């Protein structure tokens, strides 16, 4: 049926859902707000989990961080499923075009063999680190409280699956099937990777969702991404004639720049909530950060040789400066 709108006066009865008007005032709500705030059941939960009868189905008490309102942990990107998926779909188009370009022009063959070996020896085992990140973010989504905090975590989880898959494809593109096998062997047995693997496995048994958020996003990725995609890919390796590698890993650099804004916002809000939160966060960042730096040093040596120590010190200083802006002083 066609409706002639010219003659019609149709008065809206209200501008938004009640819970959004309570939070944000009597004005139309954004789709982020509609798809995020208060969408998790909050009271009159029926049963306790049979797998952990001491917990509630949605339990604020399984983390040491205390928030009056967990929906304060807003995502500055305001990602909901649609904006998230469309952003990644656009990035994926660019990645696909880059890969086609690399393969079409035979650029992989133009990288010096030594550099190629070096780059693959770092990048390919990192696919397992990204898988660990996928596991940890999935955990944060599953057990964290409130959709504002947990929704970005499922995006982060599947982003890390995507990153693990891109790294695998880079391994296949620049090396071949054997490269993935060798990378996995190094991850399992090569001494250079064992501190990092231990770190990741220790994360897998950490069941405080906020602590895991810190261990993964701040302590580990806060060092790993600048180190690998900044110092190695865009720095040392590019100057050795490996800019093709930068083309192949563009997604990871962009992704880190984007997601750190969310991570910083979460840390800042949680730290500003109370002195107790700030103490807990500082403690976690100090202990996990110390371990992450130690675990990443041998990896830095693989990629940067004897520059490794100096570069690590710089990256740690950068991270400390970044955290200072969120209110965390190490």
């Amino acid at each position, binding site marked *: 049926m066609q409706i002639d709108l010219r003659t019609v006066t149709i008065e809206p009865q209200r*501008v938004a*859902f009640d*819970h959004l008007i309570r939070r944000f005032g009597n004005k139309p709500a954004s789709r982020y707000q509609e798809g995020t705030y208060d969408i998790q059941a909050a*009271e009159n939960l029926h049963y306790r989990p049979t797998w952990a009868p001491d917990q509630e189905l949605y339990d604020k008490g399984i983390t040491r961080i205390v928030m009056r309102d967990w929906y304060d942990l807003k995502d500055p990107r305001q990602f909901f499923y649609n904006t998230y998926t469309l952003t990644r779909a656009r990035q994926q188009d660019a990645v696909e075009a880059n890969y086609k370009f690399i393969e079409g022009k035979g650029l992989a063959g133009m990288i010096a063999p030594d550099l190629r070996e070096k780059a693959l020896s770092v990048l390919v085992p990192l696919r397992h680190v990204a898988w660990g990140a996928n596991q940890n973010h999935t955990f944060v989504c*599953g057990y964290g409280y409130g959709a504002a905090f947990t929704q970005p975590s499922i995006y982060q989880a599947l982003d890390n699956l995507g990153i693990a898959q891109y790294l*695998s494809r880079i391994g296949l593109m620049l090396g071949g099937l054997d490269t993935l096998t060798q990378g996995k062997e190094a991850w399992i047995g090569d001494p250079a990777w064992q501190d990092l693997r231990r770190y990741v496995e220790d994360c897998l048994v950490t069941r405080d969702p906020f602590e895991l958020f810190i261990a993964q996003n701040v302590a580990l990725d806060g060092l790993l991404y600048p180190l690998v995609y900044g110092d190695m890919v865009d720095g040392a390796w590019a100057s050795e004639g490996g800019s093709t590698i930068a083309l192949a890993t563009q997604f990871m650099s962009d992704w880190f720049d984007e997601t750190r804004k969310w991570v910083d916002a979460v840390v800042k809000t949680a730290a500003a909530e109370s002195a107790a939160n700030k103490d807990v966060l500082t403690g976690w960042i100090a202990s996990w950060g110390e371990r992450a730096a130690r675990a990443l040093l041998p990896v830095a040596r693989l990629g940067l040789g004897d520059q490794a120590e100096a570069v690590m010190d710089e990256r740690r200083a950068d991270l400390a400066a970044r955290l200072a802006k969120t209110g965390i002083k190490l």
Partner: protein
Amino acid sequence: MDMKAPEKKLGIKEKYRLLTRDLAWQPTYRSEKEIYPYLDYEGIKIHDWDKWEDPFRLTMDAYWKYQGEKERKFYAIIDAHAQNNGHLNITDGRYLSALKIFLQAISPGEYAAHKGFARVGREFAGAGTQVACQMQALDEMRHAQTQIHALSNYNKYYSGFHAFAETRDRIWYTSVARSFFDDSMASGPFEFLIAIGFSFEYVLTNLLFVPFMSGAAYNGDMATVTFGFSAQSDEARHMTLGLECIKFMLEQDPDNLPIVQKWIDKWFWRGFRVLGLVSTMMDYMLPKRVMSWREAWEIYGVENGGALFKDLAFYGIRPPKGWEDAGKAIDHMSHQFMLGFYQWRFGTAFHSWIPSDQDMDWLSQKYPTTFDKYYRPRWDYIKRAEAEGKPFKNFGLAKLCQCCQLPCVFTEPDDASVLCHRQTTHKGEIYHFCSDGCQEIFEDEPEKYVQAWLPMPQLFQDPVNGDLAAWMDWAHLTDGLDNGEYQGSSDQRNFDRWRGLATSNT
């Protein structure tokens, strides 16, 4: 230069294996028991996670690409719907009740499924299984949000939608759906996957999303049909995951069979009760009807479910215990629900009504063995009372089933003239049930079901203390706006007036 061969053209199966399962490794610094603490307490035995067959092999690049396309289409349609007063395209304002039930009872379930799948997406030990569950967790977030976004525009013009985030936790009939999802999440990871992935998705959601959504299209609601079909396209992946999971458990160890069978029995019945709401949406709330609940059941229940259980017989699985009772209920349930909603219409955040003569003729044609015999006389009685100025209302409290939380309005499977009521005593307390199915579920896990929050007794507790008006305030139900009869409601007045403005020159 000893350049190795570039990325070989790998087959889809090999590529998928490398890009998912090969990412995981056997941990050595921590034990599997520490990493996956909940895998064995349900008694399910898994010997080799590698035997898992990946149903659809979507990598993230393809996922983003195809889901992105679906999203672009969906939001283009609901934007147009909002901009062009698409809400006036629906056949009749009565249809809105179906959408209100959807937003209050079903959309919160999508969010719960999102959380549950995130949990099992971490707790299972096989990478293939985990990835499928994680994608489902992401999809379920999509479903919750697309539903809220599609119905948001209706909220601007009609009652009953505005407090969905509050009624979800407080009103009596939403507790039916929420107890279902809470129950599944309170279960272990394998049972969760049977509950949602298999019983709900595979056996039952076709009934919700396919004939009902086709009905939405038939009634001019492009926003709803779009989220419905768009969601269901994800469900095709989810259903395949559910089916794969059940085969996987059954193939891993013969000891799994009785456990899986028990869960199928339980969750079929739980799901059948929840989706009973859909029977009423289809038979009574669609002004123009594509097919009856009975006809939908024939296609998506009997034919589809029958094929499925015939297939699973290979493993020794038999159809769910409640299958026959379900079949016997099909010709009664939509009428029993609608009569229930109508008599408790003071307490629903949607409208109900007495079906018109034309509607009743359609119902007797579709339900030749039951409608004229049992239900037309009741509607006629209600109609007479209405005409005499003594509208039929029930302000009494419904006796709720301790398991499914529906009012005990159903009849005996073999005698439609007798209300079905069961009870059991546990630790000196009496508990009530609507059916044998619900009673058995309780008796298998009484310690779980005694915890159930029952919304009716809430009326007598703090802060309501038996005061109906106070209960309405507490439940965020606006008396005289959200509840009651459709005839004379503000929704009816507005819809008819706006539609009149829209379709004539006066």
